[in-house]
């Protein structure tokens, strides 16, 4: 699945474009994809030395609450809290998308992974055929105790922010760029080595098995 991440400012903010977040604190849940998405959105707008971040919690609802309390000038949210934030009058000053990538150990059975890929691919086709039917999933899990999320209706969701594609092998270039970029921030050390990061044998076997299965392209 493709994750949508939005850089959000509160209703009273004087920030309208990401450039105006230079030297202003942005709350990020360090170590998670949304935090890196936030850094990339900021880096596209201001010099790196002007990026100022604060540690924020993982729960997006709690990050939104902290934003509304004025603990930072902006934060990065994912659905359904992007929708909640918009309904509360917050503005999105940037938006981006990134892959949710699965990580496994080296002993993963290709047959097992192929079955997983086939199940996911069928689900992607079903959801893409009628996204609105599935938005209630965004009210589960973390969101179950959040009255603002529970108050959302299916029509509140912007379906353009719910993006799914069938699983594909990890493009080496993209993996390398991500590694090099994270290393430039000091999060990773050393050079990218595709052989230690991606088990191409398991990946290839699993994708070939998944594609070769009868009915692999049906709903």
């Amino acid at each position: 699945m493709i994750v949508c991440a939005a850089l959000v400012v509160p209703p009273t903010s004087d920030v309208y474009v990401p450039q105006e977040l230079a030297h202003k604190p942005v709350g990020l849940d360090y170590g998670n994809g949304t935090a890196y998405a936030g850094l990339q959105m900021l880096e596209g707008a201001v010099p790196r030395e002007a990026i100022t971040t604060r540690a924020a919690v993982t729960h997006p609802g709690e990050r939104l609450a902290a934003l509304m309390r004025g603990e930072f000038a902006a934060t990065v949210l994912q659905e359904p809290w992007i929708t909640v934030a918009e309904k509360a009058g917050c503005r999105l000053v940037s938006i981006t998308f990134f892959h949710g990538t699965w990580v496994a150990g080296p002993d993963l059975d290709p047959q097992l992974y192929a079955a997983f890929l086939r199940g996911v691919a069928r689900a992607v086709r079903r959801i893409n055929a009628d996204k609105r039917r599935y938005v209630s999933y965004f009210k589960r899990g973390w969101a179950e105790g959040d009255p603002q999320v529970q108050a959302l209706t299916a029509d509140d969701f912007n379906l353009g922010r719910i993006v799914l594609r069938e699983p594909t092998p990890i493009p080496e270039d993209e993996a390398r760029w991500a590694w090099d970029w994270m290393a430039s921030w000091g999060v990773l050390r050393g050079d990218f080595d595709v052989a230690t990061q991606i088990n191409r044998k398991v990946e290839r076997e699993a994708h070939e098995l998944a594609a070769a299965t009868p009915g692999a392209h049906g709903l």
Partner: protein
Amino acid sequence: MAPMTMTIEPVSAFSSLDVLVAMDEGLFAAEGLDLRMASREARDIRSTTEGTLMSPVTNQGRLQERGEATMFQG
């Protein structure tokens, strides 16, 4: 044939709507896969506010490290 079994770390709709739907609608079962989702215990949960940008604290991957899950979403 006995179904294959795999346990994954917990996921949310924003990053894994496809997995949740596939579980609920029996799409993994149809492929002979009994997919299970592990639960995190209190000891597995640390706040990201304990970390820094360059030395982050994340809960992802802990269950896999202990052999209690085969995959997690990074």
